[in-house]
């Protein structure tokens, strides 16, 4: 066991390094309103976060991450541009018997800057690399923006694109939808029966026959979706070559420079990804300028696609065998719009777990 004092000291060292890099230190409450986090992450977060009750404020959660409160504070009264650093406990329920800590320190660095997003991506990554030097960690990078651009550019209905984008962070669901939209998976039996019924009668009449109307989901909403289902059944499958490119993209893992060449190669067939690939190229240039060897830097197009995340562009992790990620981060432009009531600013940042750093350094 690494002593808490050693972990705290490691956290302070990293926090001071972030401040020296130009960040303003910020504090956030440990008790966070549950509503915001639930609306953002969905019910899944209840399995990961500790929920408690406040007699006045209602359901509260023990801070499961810093990003949300830091973004909220920035959107409410932040400078533009701004850099922030923080150090404190986060709380995550762990699976029984996993042996993982349910409360630990995180130290983080967040950049809100409109000027040059790719330069900001490289700034955060290089700063983390420098601070973690000597620990023999394996950096992995990704870019969810390329996948999202590819989906937006598909030659299919807006409804199908929206369904895929909504599940970009749930790989299993995403794959199931893509399989169906591409005609690779059969239409489920229940859906076929449903379509037969919908084609046999008008939706309004079917609702009438189904019995007493209960619930606040209105007949208009039901009819609209029934009609959309019929329309979707008549939508042709995503064409095989286009679908193949998307499957290829999902499984793309290569050194970053090589991945760029590959993506440049498929861009003529999937022109919608061109701007995202250009951003990727500019980021690699910015990383190279910071001394990162992009010929060996690991890139995985699906990296960071896990539930309870909000990244929508560059993502990175620093990994050690047998440990949770020692550091991780990424770009979350869309989150600033969600939490900023329409206001928006490009943002990128990451966190380090000082406890794991101290452990790797062999602190006693």
């Amino acid at each position: 066991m690494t002593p808490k004092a050693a972990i705290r000291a490691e956290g302070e060292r990293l926090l001071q390094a972030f401040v020296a890099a130009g960040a303003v230190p910020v504090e956030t409450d440990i008790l966070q309103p549950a509503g915001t986090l639930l609306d953002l992450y969905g019910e899944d977060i209840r399995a990961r976060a500790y929920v408690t009750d406040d007699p006045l404020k209602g359901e509260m959660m023990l801070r499961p991450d810093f990003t949300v409160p830091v973004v909220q504070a920035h959107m409410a009264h932040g400078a533009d541009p701004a850099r922030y650093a923080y150090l404190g406990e986060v709380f995550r329920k762990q699976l029984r018997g996993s042996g993982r800590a349910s409360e630990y320190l995180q130290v983080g660095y967040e950049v809100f800057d409109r000027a040059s997003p790719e330069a900001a991506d490289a700034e955060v990554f290089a700063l983390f690399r420098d601070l973690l030097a000597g620990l023999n960690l394996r950096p992995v990078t990704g870019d969810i923006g390329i996948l999202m651009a590819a989906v937006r550019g598909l030659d299919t209905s807006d409804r199908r694109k929206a369904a895929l984008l909504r599940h970009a962070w749930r790989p299993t669901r995403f794959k199931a939808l893509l399989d169906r939209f591409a005609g690779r998976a059969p239409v489920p039996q229940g859906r076929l029966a449903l379509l037969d019924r919908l084609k046999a009668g008008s939706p309004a009449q079917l609702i009438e026959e189904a019995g007493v109307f209960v619930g606040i989901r209105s007949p208009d909403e039901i009819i609209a979706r029934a009609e959309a289902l019929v329309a979707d059944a008549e939508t042709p499958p995503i064409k095989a070559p286009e679908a193949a490119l998307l499957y290829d993209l999902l499984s793309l893992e290569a050194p970053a420079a090589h991945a760029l060449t590959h993506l440049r190669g498929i861009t003529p067939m999937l022109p919608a990804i061109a701007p995202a690939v250009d951003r990727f190229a500019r980021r690699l240039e910015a990383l190279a300028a910071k001394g990162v060897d992009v010929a060996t830097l690991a890139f995985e197009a699906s990296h960071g696609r896990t539930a309870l995340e909000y990244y929508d562009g560059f993502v990175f992790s620093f990994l050690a065998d047998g440990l949770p990620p020692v550091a991780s981060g990424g770009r979350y432009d869309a989150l600033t719009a969600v939490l900023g009531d329409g206001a928006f600013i490009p943002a990128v940042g990451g966190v380090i777990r000082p406890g794991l750093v101290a452990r790797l350094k062999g602190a006693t």
Partner: protein
Amino acid sequence: MIRLGVPSKGRLMQDTFDWFRARGVVMKRTGSDREYSGVIEGVEGVVPVLLSAGEIPRDLAAGRIHLGVTGSDLVREQLGEDEVAEVAKLGFGHADLVIAVPAVWIDVETVDDLDAAAAGFRKAHGHRLRIATKYHRLVRDFLQSQGVADYQLLDSQGATEGTVKNGTAEAIADITSSGETLRANHLRILSDGLIHSSEAVLWASRVADWSAGDRAAMAQLARQLGVGSPV
């Protein structure tokens, strides 16, 4: 002494007594109707403890009882795999934990439809689609494994079927054996909405203190019941 938790009343108690009696272990409630104590005949080193079926998972997890009879729904909802071991399925108390939606949702037949309807519902109403249940863990694990989003679980400890009609939830996840109550409340089960098939199970606590004498008694009881010994 092995403490065997059995349901203290109703059909579940009678079925449990019958199951044990058929295997030569006779249990009886003693004293007045209000006094929860019992005796056991036909086996040594075992004492029955009459408990509310709903409290048996908690007592197994705390190690206050070594064995207990209760529904698999309650145990799977409340306990982890490392806390209890399944000794025998008892073949009664069958009920299914299912997701049901208003019968008038003619566009929703599967969990996939529910997910899509939830997305539309949230857009139209400004809040996530509410599913009333008391089985939070089982329902959440099921929906998470299926990648369903934009829903919320609403706690309902009773009369769950009525929540849709009362406008406090859009759908429910509840235990049903015949589906009768669901239909009476104008609800319909999703075709792939079976979350858990529950039945009465004899469980062994992995947390309880099993002395050498308890293990010997358990081996004898297991032989008598014709089941594998859990310890």
